[in-house]
């Protein structure tokens, strides 16, 4: 287990590279605040404005060239295809030439021009502040102030922020800086008037530009007003955006000396820091390769590295990392108890309890009963859990008796028992005599499929002692509950019964020779698993905010089984540690993977496909980790 010399050298190199990156990155971040950088940035910004102002002129010249080319082609008697190609070619040439010629003057400025930019900038800033305020007020009135840390939904749309606004279609002279988003927010008349009021400043700027560049006629400038205003507004954006726009407009040509390199460094500062983080992780994983792999096992090591890679990518793609961590913590608490239900099953020798829906349905039933009685708050939660456990015990016991008769093929049988039970309850959900109008279908009888937890048990555990740190919102109550459940299991493992149960699971012949009733231990394990599953689904529902009956519980078994396998359990051996690690890795990779993939592949509507791909991919990988033992 010694770390070899070459490993030390490579790790050392990684640390050195990381150190260099940190130095450069921090320097870059510091430079962002410096006077010189601001000046250069202003230069680039003014260049962008100038470029925007010249846009109509460029277009005009292109148009002229295009017409000329067309006439020429007609005269020469080109065929249609030839003509089209020729015109396109001439247009490109003309555009290049125009830009080349005009851009020479882009760097030119005058005091009046700079003043005008400043005036317009101040005016626009005032407008956007007012706009933001109004929007907040609107949202608060609507009752969803500052959308809560993006809950969980795998398919939650990536933030539709600034990018969209910039590309928004622009009508004649009504500016729509924010697209009408899904919240239904519309800027008030007063705001619109404020924006209109900025027109003189804009015109002043255009005038200054025409003074500098007489070839820009008033006519041309009039159509350039909107692009110019957009370019000025970009001043209020962050460093990266301004820089990227400037570069796109070709502003690097006005930079002199070391400036291009410096600006580039400042631009990439944050990314360099993320990269440094990556190198530190790489260095550590090389240095501690053997001990870590020994402790965690190769698969977990790989998944952990993948997880860290995702964090790095999330940083590079400017995904909100604190939000994401909040998301992962919540998922950990939400699924943790369900995954814990796998533990006693594996330990008592029934391998993966794929019949977990049996326990889940007990939990769902008890929650529905609580809702039927119009219970709310803590009492509803306690009632649901208590009744859930009471319902789960006899069902789990009966299910255990069944499993004792089919030793050796538990996994197959339990999967189908779970499926059948779910289907059986599809009938019961329709037939059970629930009367509460909140629960039943509007027409006819029977329970609805989805039930909103808001207002009864929704978020009770999540919001208990919830606090925020570094932008991460910690669902304290949820995590504490998971820890409590894990602690109880841990203590049980160390009791006489628990020790006997684990022995019965890992070596029935040994247990029998030591006077242990193996069948009895399997019953205990199965019942315990069912009971924990019933509690688990209640925790899940209150956190998720919705409870889904009918086919909802069917896939839960697979998710829980995959998580515990990823955590390092096998079908015959598992520990509490595997539950926590597995849930964290599974849900973490799932949550981050989807966001990162969405950011990387910029095609809308792909998120659902990616979600299915990633989650089933993880499940498949996890099942390959189960090994061949299940067949013995």
């Amino acid at each position, binding site marked *: 287990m010694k770390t070899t010399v070459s490993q030390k050298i490579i790790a050392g190199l990684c640390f050195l590279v990381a150190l260099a990156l940190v130095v450069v990155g921090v320097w870059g971040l510091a430079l962002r605040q410096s006077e010189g950088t601001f000046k250069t940035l202003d230069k680039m910004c003014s260049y962008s404005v100038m470029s925007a102002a010249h846009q109509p002129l460029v277009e005009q010249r292109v148009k002229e060239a295009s017409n000329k080319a067309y006439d020429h082609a007609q005269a020469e008697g080109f065929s249609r295809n030839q003509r089209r190609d020729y015109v396109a070619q001439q247009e490109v040439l003309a555009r290049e030439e125009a830009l080349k010629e005009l851009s020479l003057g882009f760097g030119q400025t005058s005091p009046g021009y700079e003043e005008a930019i400043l005036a317009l900038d101040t005016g626009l800033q005032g407008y956007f502040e007012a706009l933001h305020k109004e929007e907040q007020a609107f949202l608060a009135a609507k009752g969803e102030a500052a959308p809560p840390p993006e809950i969980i939904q795998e398919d939650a749309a990536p933030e539709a922020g600034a990018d969209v606004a910039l590309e928004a279609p622009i009508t004649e002279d009504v500016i729509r800086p924010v697209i009408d988003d899904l919240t239904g927010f519309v800027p008030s008349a007063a705001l619109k008037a404020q924006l209109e009021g900025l027109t003189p400043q804009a015109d002043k700027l255009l005038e200054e530009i025409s003074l500098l560049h007489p070839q820009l006629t008033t006519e041309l400038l009039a159509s350039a007003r909107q692009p110019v205003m957009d370019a000025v507004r970009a001043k209020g954006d962050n460093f990266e955006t301004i820089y990227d726009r400037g570069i796109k407009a070709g502003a690097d040509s006005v930079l002199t000396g070391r400036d291009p390199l410096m600006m580039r460094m400042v631009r990439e500062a944050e990314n360099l820091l993320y990269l440094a983080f990556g190198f530190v992780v790489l260095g550590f994983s090389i240095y501690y390769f053997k001990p870590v792999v020994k402790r965690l096992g190769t698969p977990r090591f790989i998944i952990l590295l993948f997880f860290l890679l995702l964090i790095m990518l999330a940083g590079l793609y400017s995904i909100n990392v604190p939000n994401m961590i909040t998301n992962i913590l919540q998922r950990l608490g939400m699924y943790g108890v369900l995954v814990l239900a796998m533990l006693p099953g594996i330990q008592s020798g029934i391998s993966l309890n794929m019949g977990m829906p049996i326990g889940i349905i007990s939990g769902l039933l008890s929650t529905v009963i609580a809702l039927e009685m119009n219970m709310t708050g803590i009492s509803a939660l306690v009632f649901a859990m208590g009744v859930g456990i009471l319902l789960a015990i006899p069902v789990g016991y009966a299910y255990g008796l069944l499993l004792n008769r089919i030793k050796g093929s538990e996994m197959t049988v339990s999967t189908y028992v779970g499926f059948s039970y779910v289907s059986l309850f599809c009938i019961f959900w329709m037939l059970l005599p629930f009367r509460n109008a909140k629960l039943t279908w509007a027409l006819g009888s029977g329970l609805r499929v989805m039930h909103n937890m808001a207002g009864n048990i929704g978020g009770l555990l999540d919001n208990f002692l919830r606090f925020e740190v570094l932008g991460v919102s910690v669902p304290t109550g949820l995590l504490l509950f998971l820890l409590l459940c894990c602690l109880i299991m841990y*203590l049980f493992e*160390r*009791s*006489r019964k628990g*020790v*006997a149960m684990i*022995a019965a699971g*890992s*070596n029935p*012949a*040994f247990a*029998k*020779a*030591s*006077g*242990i*009733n193996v069948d009895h231990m399997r019953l205990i394990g199965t019942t315990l698993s069912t009971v924990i599953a019933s509690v688990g689904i209640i925790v899940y529902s209150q956190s998720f905010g919705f409870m889904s009956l009918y086919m909802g519980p069917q896939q839960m078994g697979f998710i829980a089984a995959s998580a515990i396998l990823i955590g390092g359990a096998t079908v015959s*051996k598992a520990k509490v540690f595997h539950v926590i690690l597995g849930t964290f890795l599974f849900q973490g990779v799932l949550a981050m993977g989807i966001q990162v993939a969405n950011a990387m592949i910029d095609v809308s509507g792909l998120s659902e496909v990616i979600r299915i791909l990633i989650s089933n991919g993880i499940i498949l990988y996890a099942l390959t980790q189960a090994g061949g033992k299940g067949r013995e």
Partner: protein
Amino acid sequence: MNRIGKRYGENQVLNDVSLRVKPGEIHALLGENGAGKSTLMNILFGMPVIMETGGYQGEVHIGGELVHIKSPHQAIEHGIGMVHQEFMLIPGFSVTENIKLNRELSRANIVSRLLGHDLETLDTDRMTDDARTALDKIGIAISEAEKIKNLPVGYMQFVEIAREIDKSGIKLLVFDEPTAVLTESEADILIGVMQALADEGIGIIFITHRLAEVMKAANSVTVLRDGKLAAYRETGKTTLSELASLMVGREGAEAVSDNARDFPADSPLAMEIEGLHVQMPGEAVRGLDLKVYDGEILGIGGLAGQGKIGIPNGIMGIYPAQGQVTLFGEQLPLNNPKGSLKRGLAMVSEDRRGVGLLLDQSIEDNIVFSAMQINGDFIGPAPLRLKSVRQIRQKAKEMMEELDVRATSSLQPVGTLSGGNQQKVCIARALTLNPRFLFVSEPTRGIDIGAKKLVIDTLLRLNRELKLTIVMVSSELLELKSICDRIAIVTEGRVSAILKPSASNEDFGLAMSGIEVKGESA
């Protein structure tokens, strides 16, 4: 006809063994379990296991011609046939089909002319005739159309023989313990068949444990012991007792320890077993009676499959048992492992990895497991009543020192220990129960010589210091002789003799062959 001399390398399972079989001779091959009989036959048949492990040394001659058999197929071409101990027959097929399996006679038809030999029509008539001829030759009156699964067990053996002699040009036929599953009258018929075959000039190698059959059927005998040639004898010029002592005796083995003590017949009893039946697959006990004196070390010996291992497994409730067992004057409930353990019985199982240990758990957890479950030891205070790691570690440390378990710490998983250390952990677990009576089953199986001695010495010390009554079951007679006060030999599920360790090899050999030994029974 055959002049075989070979050595088999590396592990020296066989060392300079020669075997000669003349045409028309019945030659018996004798030896204890592990003497090298199977290896010798595997070489003769060119079994893949031999080639994979580096081949063999020496030469095989058939009909005076040097041959090198590389596969079972070649063996068949050279005219060597084998009648297996476990029947190699397909139960759902008829006798004829089994005899002709993979050697079917066939006629060409249209399809086969187009698509090849594999699709020819079976020539059922000729096949039936051949099968009938073969069956007639060995004088068995069963219908050749009968399905194998409908036949009595004894007759399956004859179908196997018929299959071998149906192969044309058979010169040498090996019978691997053919009489083990047969009744006495069936065995007589079989021996008759063998003699008839021999009369036709076929050489026969007859592997068996039953000395009496050897004397009756064989012309000559080769005795193997520990992979070496012990002796070659003409049956006419030897005696039962000489063969017995040749089979069992070992060079330098006469150093029987002087540990043995005498227990008068009226000594207090630790255990009395009457009419014990145990249904343990392959090791069935059939109505065994045995008395164990308080404070003695009783050895139980015998050949594999005779039921000696079934005794402790039955009494401990691991396999279904019937009969009367009295422990220190108290009736012992059978088929109740917990009950047996609670009454102060403990057992070190012969199946160390399967039954004896939780391989992926730590040494300390293994050591205290039974005591915790049965006696409630090592449990912390109420209300949690968790296992007390401090007590456990202390006990484990004590035990590991006492038994000299070599490990990095008491937390090492037992699966990573050597066989000898695993065995010591098993013994430690049994001792932690504070038993009054200890069964030790095959304690030295699969462990190296140094560890063997340690285990044996430990057992002796436990007996002398703690006055622990020990019943030790072992296939190694030498080992039993070195520490036991008395040795019971079990044959066919019953005690055939109880001997003193000082009894002669001849007596032990005869007892193992199931022949009543008068003499020196203790």
